[in-house]
Protein backbone atom coordinates (compact mmCIF):
# COMPACT_ATOMS: atom_id res chain seq x y z
CA UNK A 1 0.00 0.00 0.00
CA UNK A 2 1.27 3.44 -0.96
CA UNK A 3 1.38 6.22 1.61
CA UNK A 4 -0.22 8.69 -0.78
CA UNK A 5 -2.08 7.99 -4.00
CA UNK A 6 -3.30 10.77 -6.28
CA UNK A 7 -5.24 9.87 -9.39
CA UNK A 8 -6.35 12.42 -11.92
CA UNK A 9 -7.25 15.12 -9.41
CA UNK A 10 -8.92 18.18 -10.91
CA UNK A 11 -9.70 21.38 -9.03
CA UNK A 12 -11.12 24.58 -10.49
CA UNK A 13 -11.85 27.90 -8.83
CA UNK A 14 -14.17 30.67 -9.79
CA UNK A 15 -12.49 34.04 -9.91
CA UNK A 16 -15.16 36.54 -10.78
CA UNK A 17 -16.70 35.23 -13.97
CA UNK A 18 -13.67 33.29 -15.08
CA UNK A 19 -12.91 29.73 -14.12
CA UNK A 20 -9.32 29.10 -13.15
CA UNK A 21 -7.79 25.66 -13.03
CA UNK A 22 -5.68 25.03 -9.98
CA UNK A 23 -5.07 21.37 -10.77
CA UNK A 24 -5.59 19.87 -14.19
CA UNK A 25 -5.67 16.13 -13.64
CA UNK A 26 -2.70 15.34 -11.43
CA UNK A 27 -1.56 11.77 -10.72
CA UNK A 28 1.34 10.44 -8.65
CA UNK A 29 1.98 8.25 -5.66
CA UNK A 30 4.31 8.38 -2.70
CA UNK A 31 5.88 5.37 -0.95
CA UNK A 32 6.08 4.92 2.78
CA UNK A 33 9.05 6.65 4.34
CA UNK A 34 9.74 8.71 1.24
CA UNK A 35 10.45 12.44 1.06
CA UNK A 36 8.49 13.58 -1.94
CA UNK A 37 8.89 17.15 -3.15
CA UNK A 38 6.26 19.11 -5.04
CA UNK A 39 8.39 21.70 -6.78
CA UNK A 40 6.90 24.65 -8.57
CA UNK A 41 6.36 28.41 -8.50
CA UNK A 42 3.60 30.24 -6.61
CA UNK A 43 0.24 29.69 -8.22
CA UNK A 44 1.18 26.31 -9.66
CA UNK A 45 -1.46 24.52 -7.56
CA UNK A 46 0.73 23.24 -4.73
CA UNK A 47 -1.46 24.52 -1.92
CA UNK A 48 -4.67 23.22 -3.50
CA UNK A 49 -3.09 19.80 -3.77
CA UNK A 50 -2.04 19.86 -0.12
CA UNK A 51 -5.47 20.95 1.01
CA UNK A 52 -7.14 18.18 -0.95
CA UNK A 53 -4.80 15.57 0.53
CA UNK A 54 -5.29 16.89 4.06
CA UNK A 55 -9.07 16.67 3.50
CA UNK A 56 -9.82 20.35 4.00
CA UNK A 57 -10.67 20.90 0.36
CA UNK A 58 -12.76 18.79 -2.01
CA UNK A 59 -11.47 18.06 -5.48
CA UNK A 60 -13.84 18.49 -8.43
CA UNK A 61 -12.95 15.05 -9.72
CA UNK A 62 -10.37 12.33 -9.32
CA UNK A 63 -9.37 10.09 -6.46
CA UNK A 64 -6.85 10.49 -3.69
CA UNK A 65 -5.94 8.46 -0.63
CA UNK A 66 -3.61 8.87 2.30
CA UNK A 67 -2.47 5.74 4.14
CA UNK A 68 -5.12 3.85 2.24
CA UNK A 69 -7.94 6.12 3.38
CA UNK A 70 -10.06 7.97 0.86
CA UNK A 71 -9.69 11.72 1.31
CA UNK A 72 -13.44 12.23 0.94
CA UNK A 73 -15.07 9.27 2.65
CA UNK A 74 -12.52 8.55 5.36
CA UNK A 75 -11.54 12.12 6.06
CA UNK A 76 -11.94 11.64 9.80
CA UNK A 77 -9.43 8.80 9.85
CA UNK A 78 -6.95 10.83 7.86
CA UNK A 79 -7.37 13.77 10.18
CA UNK A 80 -6.49 11.52 13.09
CA UNK A 81 -3.13 10.52 11.78
CA UNK A 82 -1.55 13.08 9.52
CA UNK A 83 0.50 16.12 10.41
CA UNK A 84 -0.03 19.32 8.43
CA UNK A 85 1.93 22.52 8.32
CA UNK A 86 0.12 24.93 6.00
CA UNK A 87 1.88 27.61 4.02
CA UNK A 88 1.75 30.38 6.53
CA UNK A 89 3.09 28.32 9.45
CA UNK A 90 -0.21 28.64 11.29
CA UNK A 91 0.63 29.38 14.87
CA UNK A 92 -1.15 31.57 17.36
CA UNK A 93 0.99 34.70 17.53
CA UNK A 94 -0.45 35.73 20.89
CA UNK A 95 0.25 32.41 22.56
CA UNK A 96 3.67 31.45 23.84
CA UNK A 97 5.81 28.75 22.29
CA UNK A 98 4.81 26.28 24.96
CA UNK A 99 1.12 27.20 24.86
CA UNK A 100 1.06 26.63 21.11
CA UNK A 101 2.63 23.21 21.42
CA UNK A 102 0.38 22.25 24.33
CA UNK A 103 -2.66 23.28 22.38
CA UNK A 104 -1.79 21.31 19.28
CA UNK A 105 -0.90 18.29 21.40
CA UNK A 106 -4.24 18.50 23.19
CA UNK A 107 -6.42 18.73 20.11
CA UNK A 108 -4.80 15.54 18.87
CA UNK A 109 -5.53 13.90 22.21
CA UNK A 110 -1.96 13.67 23.33
CA UNK A 111 0.46 15.55 25.54
CA UNK A 112 3.90 17.02 25.05
CA UNK A 113 5.25 14.50 27.54
CA UNK A 114 3.91 11.51 25.67
CA UNK A 115 5.64 12.28 22.40
CA UNK A 116 8.49 14.42 23.60
CA UNK A 117 11.06 12.04 22.11
CA UNK A 118 9.78 12.66 18.61
CA UNK A 119 9.99 16.44 18.77
CA UNK A 120 12.81 16.67 21.28
CA UNK A 121 15.52 17.38 18.78
CA UNK A 122 13.62 20.18 17.10
CA UNK A 123 11.82 21.54 20.11
CA UNK A 124 14.91 21.62 22.32
CA UNK A 125 16.30 24.33 20.04
CA UNK A 126 13.40 26.62 20.78
CA UNK A 127 12.74 25.49 24.33
CA UNK A 128 14.89 28.28 25.83
CA UNK A 129 12.25 30.63 24.43
CA UNK A 130 9.23 28.64 25.50
CA UNK A 131 7.66 31.59 27.29
CA UNK A 132 8.04 33.91 24.35
CA UNK A 133 5.02 34.72 22.20
CA UNK A 134 5.13 32.90 18.88
CA UNK A 135 4.55 36.19 17.06
CA UNK A 136 7.89 37.44 18.31
CA UNK A 137 9.95 34.54 16.99
CA UNK A 138 12.17 34.79 13.93
CA UNK A 139 11.20 32.98 10.76
CA UNK A 140 13.53 30.07 11.48
CA UNK A 141 12.23 29.54 14.99
CA UNK A 142 8.61 29.85 13.96
CA UNK A 143 9.25 27.20 11.38
CA UNK A 144 10.73 24.88 14.02
CA UNK A 145 7.80 25.47 16.32
CA UNK A 146 5.31 24.84 13.54
CA UNK A 147 7.07 21.61 12.68
CA UNK A 148 7.02 20.55 16.33
CA UNK A 149 3.29 21.28 16.44
CA UNK A 150 2.70 19.22 13.30
CA UNK A 151 4.72 16.32 14.73
CA UNK A 152 3.51 16.23 18.31
CA UNK A 153 0.89 13.56 17.68
CA UNK A 154 3.26 11.21 15.87
CA UNK A 155 1.70 11.41 12.42
CA UNK A 156 2.33 8.71 9.84
CA UNK A 157 2.36 11.20 6.98
CA UNK A 158 3.59 14.75 7.24
CA UNK A 159 2.36 17.45 4.86
CA UNK A 160 4.59 20.51 4.71
CA UNK A 161 3.38 23.27 2.42
CA UNK A 162 6.23 25.62 1.54
CA UNK A 163 7.92 25.30 4.91
CA UNK A 164 11.06 27.14 3.85
CA UNK A 165 9.51 30.23 2.27
CA UNK A 166 10.87 33.39 3.83
CA UNK A 167 13.43 31.58 5.94
CA UNK A 168 17.15 32.27 5.70
CA UNK A 169 19.72 29.87 4.27
CA UNK A 170 20.96 28.59 7.62
CA UNK A 171 17.50 27.77 8.89
CA UNK A 172 16.59 26.22 5.58
CA UNK A 173 19.56 23.92 5.70
CA UNK A 174 18.80 22.91 9.30
CA UNK A 175 15.21 22.32 8.36
CA UNK A 176 16.09 19.87 5.62
CA UNK A 177 18.46 18.08 7.97
CA UNK A 178 15.55 17.67 10.38
CA UNK A 179 13.36 16.26 7.63
CA UNK A 180 15.95 13.64 6.79
CA UNK A 181 16.09 12.56 10.41
CA UNK A 182 12.30 12.27 10.48
CA UNK A 183 12.42 10.13 7.39
CA UNK A 184 14.70 7.73 9.24
CA UNK A 185 11.95 7.33 11.83
CA UNK A 186 9.67 6.10 9.08
CA UNK A 187 7.53 9.19 8.58
CA UNK A 188 6.40 9.83 5.02
CA UNK A 189 6.90 13.45 4.05
CA UNK A 190 5.21 15.39 1.26
CA UNK A 191 6.85 18.78 1.02
CA UNK A 192 6.32 21.63 -1.42
CA UNK A 193 8.68 24.41 -2.31
CA UNK A 194 9.17 27.14 -4.87
CA UNK A 195 12.94 26.84 -4.52
CA UNK A 196 14.26 24.57 -7.20
CA UNK A 197 17.55 23.95 -5.45
CA UNK A 198 15.68 22.08 -2.71
CA UNK A 199 14.61 19.42 -5.21
CA UNK A 200 17.88 17.54 -4.84
CA UNK A 201 17.17 17.08 -1.14
CA UNK A 202 14.07 14.97 -1.91
CA UNK A 203 13.94 11.27 -2.74
CA UNK A 204 11.57 11.98 -5.60
CA UNK A 205 10.05 15.14 -6.96
CA UNK A 206 7.03 16.22 -8.92
CA UNK A 207 7.67 19.36 -10.95
CA UNK A 208 4.43 21.31 -11.12
CA UNK A 209 3.48 24.29 -13.23
CA UNK A 210 0.01 25.76 -13.84
CA UNK A 211 -1.74 22.76 -12.33
CA UNK A 212 0.12 20.22 -14.44
CA UNK A 213 2.86 17.84 -13.32
CA UNK A 214 5.71 18.31 -15.78
CA UNK A 215 7.69 15.37 -14.48
CA UNK A 216 7.65 12.90 -11.60
CA UNK A 217 11.00 11.30 -10.92
CA UNK A 218 14.09 11.16 -8.75
CA UNK A 219 16.08 14.39 -8.99
CA UNK A 220 18.88 12.48 -10.70
CA UNK A 221 16.59 11.09 -13.37
CA UNK A 222 15.00 14.48 -13.94
CA UNK A 223 18.44 15.87 -14.65
CA UNK A 224 19.56 12.98 -16.80
CA UNK A 225 16.52 13.47 -18.99
CA UNK A 226 17.73 16.93 -20.01
CA UNK A 227 18.24 16.41 -23.72
CA UNK A 228 20.18 19.44 -24.87
CA UNK A 229 23.86 20.23 -24.50
CA UNK A 230 24.13 22.99 -21.92
CA UNK A 231 26.94 25.52 -21.97
CA UNK A 232 27.90 28.08 -19.40
CA UNK A 233 29.44 31.34 -20.49
CA UNK A 234 30.51 34.46 -18.72
CA UNK A 235 32.33 37.67 -19.51
CA UNK A 236 32.73 40.99 -17.82
CA UNK A 237 30.04 42.42 -20.07
CA UNK A 238 27.19 40.14 -19.03
CA UNK A 239 24.26 42.12 -20.37
CA UNK A 240 25.53 42.86 -23.91
CA UNK A 241 26.69 39.25 -24.04
CA UNK A 242 23.20 38.02 -23.22
CA UNK A 243 21.63 40.30 -25.79
CA UNK A 244 24.04 39.07 -28.44
CA UNK A 245 23.44 35.41 -27.61
CA UNK A 246 19.69 35.81 -27.53
CA UNK A 247 19.72 37.56 -30.88
CA UNK A 248 21.69 34.76 -32.54
CA UNK A 249 19.52 32.43 -34.67
CA UNK A 250 21.52 29.32 -33.75
CA UNK A 251 20.58 29.71 -30.08
CA UNK A 252 17.73 27.64 -28.65
CA UNK A 253 17.67 29.23 -25.19
CA UNK A 254 19.75 31.57 -23.13
CA UNK A 255 19.05 32.29 -19.49
CA UNK A 256 21.06 34.26 -16.98
CA UNK A 257 22.16 31.92 -14.19
CA UNK A 258 23.97 33.79 -11.49
CA UNK A 259 27.52 34.44 -12.62
CA UNK A 260 26.94 32.65 -15.94
CA UNK A 261 24.50 32.46 -18.80
CA UNK A 262 23.24 29.00 -19.61
CA UNK A 263 22.94 28.48 -23.33
CA UNK A 264 21.62 25.70 -25.54
CA UNK A 265 21.76 25.50 -29.33
CA UNK A 266 19.59 23.96 -32.01
CA UNK A 267 22.57 21.99 -33.15
CA UNK A 268 24.13 20.27 -30.11
CA UNK A 269 27.37 19.33 -31.79
CA UNK A 270 28.25 22.84 -32.88
CA UNK A 271 27.51 24.49 -29.54
CA UNK A 272 31.06 25.43 -28.69
CA UNK A 273 31.88 26.69 -32.17
CA UNK A 274 28.76 28.83 -32.22
CA UNK A 275 29.55 30.39 -28.84
CA UNK A 276 33.08 31.19 -29.94
CA UNK A 277 31.76 32.78 -33.08
CA UNK A 278 29.36 35.01 -31.10
CA UNK A 279 32.15 36.12 -28.81
CA UNK A 280 34.43 36.97 -31.70
CA UNK A 281 31.78 39.29 -33.13
CA UNK A 282 31.64 41.35 -29.94
CA UNK A 283 34.02 43.01 -27.59
CA UNK A 284 34.16 40.92 -24.44
CA UNK A 285 36.81 40.54 -21.77
CA UNK A 286 37.53 37.72 -19.30
CA UNK A 287 35.46 35.27 -21.30
CA UNK A 288 34.93 31.82 -19.87
CA UNK A 289 33.13 28.99 -21.69
CA UNK A 290 32.54 25.44 -20.55
CA UNK A 291 29.94 22.70 -20.87
CA UNK A 292 27.85 22.30 -17.77
CA UNK A 293 25.56 19.73 -16.22
CA UNK A 294 21.95 20.88 -16.17
CA UNK A 295 20.42 21.46 -12.76
CA UNK A 296 16.77 21.12 -11.75
CA UNK A 297 16.05 24.70 -12.72
CA UNK A 298 17.39 24.18 -16.26
CA UNK A 299 15.23 21.08 -16.51
CA UNK A 300 12.19 22.87 -15.17
CA UNK A 301 12.54 25.63 -17.75
CA UNK A 302 13.06 23.14 -20.54
CA UNK A 303 9.94 21.23 -19.44
CA UNK A 304 7.95 24.48 -19.17
CA UNK A 305 8.76 25.24 -22.77
CA UNK A 306 7.66 21.85 -24.08
Amino acid at each position, binding site marked *: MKAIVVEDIVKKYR*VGKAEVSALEGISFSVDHGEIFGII*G*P*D*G*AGKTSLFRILTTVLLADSGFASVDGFDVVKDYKKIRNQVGYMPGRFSLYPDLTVQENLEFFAAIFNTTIKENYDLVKEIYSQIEP*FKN*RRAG*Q*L*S*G*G*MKQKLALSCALIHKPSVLFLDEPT*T*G*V*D*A*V*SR*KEFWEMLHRLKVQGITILVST*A*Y*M*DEATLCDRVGLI*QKGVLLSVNTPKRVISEFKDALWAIRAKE*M*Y*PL*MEAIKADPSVLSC*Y*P*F*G*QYHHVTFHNKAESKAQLERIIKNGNYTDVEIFPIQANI*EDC*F*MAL*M*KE
Partner: protein
Amino acid sequence: METEKVIRAKELTKKFGAFTAVDNISFEVAKGEIFGFLGANGAGKTTAMRMLCGLSLPTSGTASVAGFDVYKESEAIKKNIGYMSQKFSLYEDLTVTENISFYAGIYGLNDRQIKEKTSQLLAQLHLVGEEKSLVRSLPLGWKQKLAFSIAIVHDPAIVFLDEPTGGVDPIARREFWSMIYAASARGITIFVTTHYMDEAEYCDRVSIMVDGRIDALDSPMNLMKEFEVNSMDDVFLQLARNAQRIEG
Protein backbone atom coordinates in the same frame (compact mmCIF):
# COMPACT_ATOMS: atom_id res chain seq x y z
CA MET B 1 39.66 54.48 -14.04
CA GLU B 2 37.91 55.83 -10.97
CA THR B 3 34.24 54.97 -11.35
CA GLU B 4 31.59 57.19 -9.97
CA LYS B 5 30.37 56.07 -6.53
CA VAL B 6 26.67 56.28 -5.93
CA ILE B 7 26.64 54.97 -2.40
CA ARG B 8 29.35 55.70 0.08
CA ALA B 9 28.99 54.45 3.62
CA LYS B 10 31.69 54.97 6.19
CA GLU B 11 31.60 53.49 9.68
CA LEU B 12 27.84 53.59 9.58
CA THR B 13 26.31 52.52 12.89
CA LYS B 14 22.79 52.28 14.25
CA LYS B 15 22.03 51.52 17.86
CA PHE B 16 18.69 50.89 19.47
CA GLY B 17 19.44 51.43 23.13
CA ALA B 18 22.10 48.92 24.08
CA PHE B 19 21.52 46.89 20.92
CA THR B 20 23.77 47.61 17.95
CA ALA B 21 21.72 46.70 14.89
CA VAL B 22 24.29 47.94 12.39
CA ASP B 23 27.85 47.89 13.58
CA ASN B 24 30.33 50.15 11.88
CA ILE B 25 29.87 49.19 8.25
CA SER B 26 31.78 50.76 5.37
CA PHE B 27 31.32 50.13 1.68
CA GLU B 28 30.95 51.84 -1.67
CA VAL B 29 28.75 51.02 -4.62
CA ALA B 30 29.61 52.17 -8.14
CA LYS B 31 27.22 53.62 -10.67
CA GLY B 32 25.43 50.88 -12.59
CA GLU B 33 26.63 48.18 -10.26
CA ILE B 34 24.38 45.32 -9.15
CA PHE B 35 25.12 45.12 -5.46
CA GLY B 36 23.84 42.24 -3.35
CA PHE B 37 23.23 42.96 0.30
CA LEU B 38 22.97 39.63 2.06
CA GLY B 39 22.45 38.44 5.59
CA ALA B 40 20.37 36.12 7.74
CA ASN B 41 17.11 37.27 9.31
CA GLY B 42 18.00 39.84 11.91
CA ALA B 43 21.55 40.46 10.71
CA GLY B 44 20.79 44.16 10.24
CA LYS B 45 20.04 44.33 6.48
CA THR B 46 16.76 46.13 6.82
CA THR B 47 18.08 48.67 9.31
CA ALA B 48 21.05 49.45 7.08
CA MET B 49 18.86 49.81 4.04
CA ARG B 50 16.47 52.12 5.88
CA MET B 51 19.36 54.43 6.71
CA LEU B 52 20.45 54.52 3.08
CA CYS B 53 16.90 55.30 1.92
CA GLY B 54 16.71 58.23 4.29
CA LEU B 55 14.04 56.61 6.45
CA SER B 56 16.11 56.35 9.61
CA LEU B 57 18.99 58.41 10.98
CA PRO B 58 22.30 56.69 11.71
CA THR B 59 23.66 56.80 15.26
CA SER B 60 27.14 57.53 13.95
CA GLY B 61 29.24 57.31 10.80
CA THR B 62 28.66 58.96 7.45
CA ALA B 63 26.87 57.95 4.31
CA SER B 64 25.90 59.54 1.05
CA VAL B 65 23.44 58.21 -1.48
CA ALA B 66 23.33 59.59 -5.00
CA GLY B 67 25.58 62.36 -3.73
CA PHE B 68 23.26 63.39 -0.91
CA ASP B 69 23.97 63.17 2.78
CA VAL B 70 21.75 60.77 4.74
CA TYR B 71 21.63 63.10 7.74
CA LYS B 72 20.67 66.33 6.06
CA GLU B 73 19.33 65.58 2.62
CA SER B 74 16.96 62.66 3.09
CA GLU B 75 14.29 64.40 1.00
CA ALA B 76 16.68 64.71 -1.95
CA ILE B 77 17.65 61.06 -1.51
CA LYS B 78 14.04 59.96 -1.68
CA LYS B 79 13.61 61.75 -4.99
CA ASN B 80 16.58 59.95 -6.47
CA ILE B 81 15.91 56.39 -5.45
CA GLY B 82 13.40 53.75 -6.39
CA TYR B 83 12.13 51.05 -4.08
CA MET B 84 10.52 47.68 -4.59
CA SER B 85 9.73 45.25 -1.81
CA GLN B 86 8.88 41.58 -1.89
CA LYS B 87 5.23 42.48 -1.72
CA PHE B 88 5.69 44.37 -4.98
CA SER B 89 4.10 47.54 -3.59
CA LEU B 90 1.45 47.57 -6.33
CA TYR B 91 -2.20 48.27 -5.67
CA GLU B 92 -3.97 45.04 -6.48
CA ASP B 93 -7.33 46.72 -6.93
CA LEU B 94 -6.08 49.31 -9.40
CA THR B 95 -5.43 48.66 -13.07
CA VAL B 96 -2.01 48.46 -14.67
CA THR B 97 -2.15 52.01 -16.02
CA GLU B 98 -3.59 53.40 -12.81
CA ASN B 99 -0.67 51.97 -10.90
CA ILE B 100 1.81 53.41 -13.38
CA SER B 101 0.28 56.89 -13.36
CA PHE B 102 -0.04 56.87 -9.59
CA TYR B 103 3.63 56.16 -8.97
CA ALA B 104 4.82 58.31 -11.82
CA GLY B 105 2.66 61.11 -10.40
CA ILE B 106 4.16 60.72 -6.92
CA TYR B 107 7.63 61.21 -8.38
CA GLY B 108 6.53 64.40 -10.07
CA LEU B 109 6.33 63.34 -13.72
CA ASN B 110 4.01 65.58 -15.71
CA ASP B 111 1.03 64.30 -17.69
CA ARG B 112 2.89 64.11 -20.96
CA GLN B 113 5.76 62.18 -19.40
CA ILE B 114 3.32 59.86 -17.64
CA LYS B 115 1.61 59.12 -20.91
CA GLU B 116 4.88 58.48 -22.64
CA LYS B 117 6.18 56.27 -19.85
CA THR B 118 2.94 54.33 -19.71
CA SER B 119 2.94 53.39 -23.38
CA GLN B 120 6.65 52.66 -23.22
CA LEU B 121 6.24 50.35 -20.21
CA LEU B 122 3.22 48.58 -21.65
CA ALA B 123 5.15 47.82 -24.82
CA GLN B 124 8.27 46.70 -22.97
CA LEU B 125 6.38 44.40 -20.64
CA HIS B 126 4.13 43.02 -23.39
CA LEU B 127 1.17 44.30 -21.41
CA VAL B 128 -0.54 46.00 -24.35
CA GLY B 129 -4.15 44.88 -24.15
CA GLU B 130 -3.92 44.45 -20.39
CA GLU B 131 -3.87 48.18 -19.56
CA LYS B 132 -7.29 48.00 -17.97
CA SER B 133 -6.75 44.70 -16.15
CA LEU B 134 -6.64 44.85 -12.40
CA VAL B 135 -3.17 44.09 -11.14
CA ARG B 136 -4.75 41.37 -9.00
CA SER B 137 -5.54 39.34 -12.10
CA LEU B 138 -1.97 39.34 -13.47
CA PRO B 139 0.32 36.33 -13.02
CA LEU B 140 2.92 36.76 -10.32
CA GLY B 141 5.81 37.07 -12.75
CA TRP B 142 4.14 39.94 -14.58
CA LYS B 143 3.37 41.73 -11.36
CA GLN B 144 6.97 41.52 -10.39
CA LYS B 145 8.20 42.94 -13.67
CA LEU B 146 5.61 45.69 -13.54
CA ALA B 147 6.60 46.55 -9.99
CA PHE B 148 10.22 46.81 -10.98
CA SER B 149 9.44 48.98 -13.99
CA ILE B 150 7.39 51.25 -11.78
CA ALA B 151 10.18 51.45 -9.23
CA ILE B 152 12.44 52.89 -11.91
CA VAL B 153 9.79 54.91 -13.73
CA HIS B 154 11.45 58.18 -12.64
CA ASP B 155 14.95 57.05 -13.72
CA PRO B 156 16.40 57.03 -10.22
CA ALA B 157 20.12 56.85 -9.57
CA ILE B 158 19.62 53.78 -7.40
CA VAL B 159 16.86 51.25 -7.00
CA PHE B 160 16.54 49.28 -3.78
CA LEU B 161 15.07 45.81 -4.21
CA ASP B 162 14.00 44.15 -0.99
CA GLU B 163 13.88 40.38 -1.58
CA PRO B 164 12.33 40.78 -4.99
CA THR B 165 12.08 37.36 -6.61
CA GLY B 166 10.47 34.94 -4.18
CA GLY B 167 8.11 32.35 -5.58
CA VAL B 168 8.02 33.09 -9.31
CA ASP B 169 8.70 30.44 -11.90
CA PRO B 170 12.28 30.10 -13.15
CA ILE B 171 11.63 31.61 -16.56
CA ALA B 172 9.85 34.65 -15.12
CA ARG B 173 12.69 34.96 -12.67
CA ARG B 174 15.22 35.11 -15.47
CA GLU B 175 13.19 37.63 -17.38
CA PHE B 176 13.20 39.67 -14.24
CA TRP B 177 16.97 39.47 -13.92
CA SER B 178 17.32 40.41 -17.57
CA MET B 179 15.40 43.57 -16.78
CA ILE B 180 17.74 44.25 -13.89
CA TYR B 181 20.74 43.81 -16.17
CA ALA B 182 19.18 46.18 -18.67
CA ALA B 183 18.56 48.81 -16.01
CA SER B 184 22.10 48.44 -14.77
CA ALA B 185 23.40 48.83 -18.35
CA ARG B 186 21.46 52.13 -18.47
CA GLY B 187 23.45 53.28 -15.45
CA ILE B 188 20.92 52.62 -12.72
CA THR B 189 22.55 51.19 -9.62
CA ILE B 190 20.81 48.12 -8.25
CA PHE B 191 20.90 47.42 -4.53
CA VAL B 192 19.34 44.01 -3.74
CA THR B 193 18.73 42.55 -0.32
CA THR B 194 17.96 38.88 -0.22
CA HIS B 195 18.55 35.80 1.81
CA TYR B 196 18.43 33.51 -1.17
CA MET B 197 21.97 32.82 -2.16
CA ASP B 198 21.34 31.69 -5.70
CA GLU B 199 19.99 35.17 -6.29
CA ALA B 200 23.23 36.58 -4.91
CA GLU B 201 25.16 34.95 -7.72
CA TYR B 202 23.58 37.34 -10.22
CA CYS B 203 25.19 40.32 -8.53
CA ASP B 204 28.42 42.03 -9.51
CA ARG B 205 29.47 42.21 -5.90
CA VAL B 206 27.88 41.07 -2.69
CA SER B 207 28.29 41.97 0.94
CA ILE B 208 27.34 39.54 3.65
CA MET B 209 26.18 40.89 6.98
CA VAL B 210 26.58 38.89 10.16
CA ASP B 211 25.58 40.31 13.53
CA GLY B 212 25.40 43.85 12.15
CA ARG B 213 28.86 43.75 10.57
CA ILE B 214 29.84 43.25 6.94
CA ASP B 215 31.94 40.09 7.16
CA ALA B 216 32.56 39.61 3.46
CA LEU B 217 32.48 41.92 0.46
CA ASP B 218 33.57 40.87 -3.01
CA SER B 219 32.34 39.42 -6.27
CA PRO B 220 30.57 36.06 -5.87
CA MET B 221 33.39 34.42 -7.88
CA ASN B 222 36.09 35.71 -5.60
CA LEU B 223 34.14 34.83 -2.47
CA MET B 224 33.66 31.27 -3.67
CA LYS B 225 37.38 31.03 -4.38
CA GLU B 226 38.28 32.58 -1.06
CA PHE B 227 36.08 30.18 0.91
CA GLU B 228 36.97 27.28 -1.40
CA VAL B 229 33.38 26.31 -2.06
CA ASN B 230 31.18 25.95 -5.15
CA SER B 231 28.19 28.07 -4.25
CA MET B 232 27.25 31.25 -2.48
CA ASP B 233 25.05 29.12 -0.27
CA ASP B 234 28.14 27.51 1.22
CA VAL B 235 29.92 30.85 1.56
CA PHE B 236 26.95 32.14 3.45
CA LEU B 237 26.62 29.08 5.64
CA GLN B 238 30.27 29.32 6.68
CA LEU B 239 29.85 32.94 7.65
CA ALA B 240 26.41 32.78 9.19
CA ARG B 241 27.11 29.73 11.31
CA ASN B 242 29.55 31.89 13.28
CA ALA B 243 26.82 34.33 14.14
CA GLN B 244 26.61 35.11 17.83
CA ARG B 245 23.39 37.02 17.77
CA ILE B 246 20.49 34.88 18.90
CA GLU B 247 17.80 35.11 16.31
CA GLY B 248 14.54 36.35 17.54
